[in-house]
């Protein structure tokens, strides 16, 4: 289906308007909205993420591609709901208690959406309780926590401990990230994954959620 390839190409170039037009056209042609999402939009995002990792493109190119993706999804969404399409998984994303940094978290949210997950952005300075109650409320698969300071990193542990206490730990995939966070810290506090950047986070989240849901 050529049009889907074209959507993917235009998305990678960040052409939000053209993406919108083509997504509408694809719908008019009767192409399955799920197919448009997966083979047009999400596949384009995957390619741009890969290019970013290889240093072929930089942050701005990813930003415009993600924006184009968003524009396409806006057209597609009502149809996706109609056909009962479910996202591959749901994730809660927030910066932990005591920490107010938002830009890194915002980029993570953007990339996770680009990987086809349903995202609940619960902001910054989030209490452990709020991570958990929101995750329970929306029946999330993943809890993503961000911390940019050594002083706020322990809040990640608090969330994991609270999950353990409630016997909910096994229910969620817990992912952590942020400048001072490391693989060994993640291991130490019992998180499932540490990822060094937003692109890797999206990749790992996607794989993990597919494994979990099966």
């Amino acid at each position, binding site marked *: 289906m050529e049009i889907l390839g074209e959507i993917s190409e235009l998305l990678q170039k*960040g052409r939000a308007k053209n993406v919108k037009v083509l997504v509408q056209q694809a719908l008019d042609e009767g192409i399955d909205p799920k197919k448009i999402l997966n083979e047009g939009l999400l596949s384009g995002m995957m390619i741009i993420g890969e290019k970013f990792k290889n240093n072929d493109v*930089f942050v*701005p*190119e990813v930003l415009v591609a993600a*924006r184009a993706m968003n524009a396409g999804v806006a057209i597609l969404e009502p149809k996706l709901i109609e056909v009962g399409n479910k996202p591959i998984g749901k994730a809660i994303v927030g910066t932990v208690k005591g*920490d107010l940094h938002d*830009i890194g978290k915002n980029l993570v949210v953007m990339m996770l959406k680009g990987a086809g997950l349903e995202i609940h952005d619960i902001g910054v*300075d989030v209490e452990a309780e709020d991570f958990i109650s929101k995750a329970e409320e929306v029946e999330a698969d993943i809890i993503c926590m961000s911390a940019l300071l050594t*002083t*706020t990193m322990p809040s990640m542990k608090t969330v994991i401990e609270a999950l353990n206490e409630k016997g909910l730990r096994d229910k969620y995939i817990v992912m952590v990230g942020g400048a001072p966070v490391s693989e060994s810290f993640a291991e130490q506090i019992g998180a499932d994954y540490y990822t060094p950047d937003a692109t890797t986070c999206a990749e790992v989240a996607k794989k993990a959620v597919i494994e979990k849901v099966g």
Partner: protein
Amino acid sequence: MSDITIVKQFENVIKQEEVFKLIDCYKESDIYEEVVEEYEEVKQNVLSLLEPYGVFGVEKTCEERDIEALQGKKECIYVALTIGNKVTQYSNALFKEGDYLKGMLVDAIADAYLFSMEKGMEESIRQVCAKHKRGIEKRLEAPHDIPMTFQKKIWESLQLKERLNIDLSDGYMFNPVKTIGYVLVLSEDEKLFEIQHDCSKCPSINCKNRRIPTVQIEVLNEEGSHKISCKKGENLLEVLRRNKIFPNAICSGKGVCGKCKVRVVSGELPLTEADSKKLMESEINQGYRLACMAQVQQPLTVEVLRADAHFEVLTHYEEENKVALEQSEVDNRIEKDYIIAIDIGTTTLAVGIVEEATGKMTDITSAVNRQRAYGADVISRIQASNEGKGKVLQELIRQDLWQGIEVVIKKGNISKERIKRVVIGCNTTMGHLLMGYSCETLGVFPFTPVNIGTIRGSFKEILGREDLECEVILLPGISTYVGGDIVAGLLACHFETRQEVALFVDLGTNGEMALGNKDKIICAATAAGPAFEGGNILWGTGSIEGAISRVHFKEGTMQYETIGQKPPAGLCGTGVIELVAELVKQELIDETGLLEEDYFEEGYPIATTLDGESIVLTQKDIREIQLAKSAIRTGIEILLESYGVTYDQVETVYLAGGFGFNLDKDKAITIGLFPEAFKNKIKIVGNSSLGGAIYYGTHKEAEENVEHIGKVAEEVNLSTNKNFNEFYMEHMIF
């Protein structure tokens, strides 16, 4: 606190280039113009939302015993700058709407503005300093120079809540986020004015605003001295790699394998935890450090020697099926045509030049695959490629191959036009890296390759240069883990015409094997691990000079031979196998693999190095060998069972690869790598990947033969076989 000064007027000096630098937007980008447009669009909005305030004051008593930078210091200036919360809200709102580019730009403009405010404060601070007859010795910032908790002190002293409505979070972070605070330590020297952030001490290596001096490093290696430079604080292994100097890094720079050691000749590299763990005391005293954990802080001279440079590379191959051209026809030619045959191994490379008509090898050269600097096995190369090193890896192998090709052409004084084709045998990962394909799918289930077929292209397309104009061919593979090197081996052993069933085994990390004849071939890759190549073995090493390669029990003692008859330096794969075999025979290892009690703790000592260290085989080493040999043996058993043949029905067992080449067949049978019944059937074929590439390059029918092999061959999944576990446990014992 005295002399509290509040500054509200700041010049609007936002420089587009600084903002763009913060978000990595460059003129070469396809979307540069678009970003400029959007920048212009949001810039005015940001300016209208700014609420810039600066405040500072002099603190006469701010000695902190627990903070190194403030010990004994009496006077400081505390500074805080903010632009308020509205810009952050604007940025967040844009992100929520999905207008990510604008959101990011707004955030970057805010940062650029905040940094520029520092400049705007300078004059007022200078005046206060002059009044007190003080200079500024240095600037301190949390969390690098002073702990985050100190921000509370700044917050309280400057009364930030009351004056500017700035809050402090539980993590000692100022709210609004776009607020910075720092401490200026005063000096009696009035002339000093070190008010700038000292980037050289800051650990944020990747910061876009990093302004730091470069450090010169002189590197000494086999090729002489190289002068290179890096930024202060950079990782030494990264710096070396960037300058095309590749120490061994089997673990790919995680501080685990201990192989990337360099010797500091002058200057200093502080001892790291990994150094203490992985290096011997004598080495540390001699100045050895692990490059992967070292941060360059000052000018250095380091010696980077590669033990691997002396790797024994297998260039021998079986020559039983040479072309039988009429001699006269060949001699009558004025100038001969040639082909180049290449084996790309994960560890080593071999490049041979061969007469097209006769298949006679005129010259051959070999080298270590420099991709090894990114890890010893295919898995770590796949990881490196996935982490954005794909281009570097491709460039490395292209360079290595070209060097080899240049050597053989020059040695034989062969004109480039006479080279008709280049044929390459290699495993699937090596092929992907050479072609620059993504390796994403190679490492995860269901392990799908990007391209497994025969790959043909011009010299330029595949090797990236125009020195030769001939075609380059990569032999096809069967699956991701049974690649073109194995197909080359099957071709070299003529599976495509064979009536009787034969077994082909390449004894390496992936332990690929194939069983069959012209009608049906089944193959598999076993996860043997690196033990046969000396990996995961305490004193294990590659086939380097000084490696113990042979062990015999004679006259009541264990006697050994080393490669190149050099003083013992470790155990290579064959050395480990032979030692285990002899220990089993002497009953110092029991059937279950348990080492005799006397040696259980310290390991069995086989030799002593020049430095007086004892080379031992440990209990853990034996377990590794058990796992590896059982993996291979299990593979063989499952292939036989799936094919429906017995040991007796196997006519020949071809053993390929460098490790197989030097293996003592009897000892391999002693440890149970092969069944007793194979004793007189094992035939060593050497570098059959190279042999197959030569055959392909010199025989017209080879293309068809390879196609035939591809058609009749299929991969068997060992781990899902119902008898896998049973076999695996059974063959673990000796």
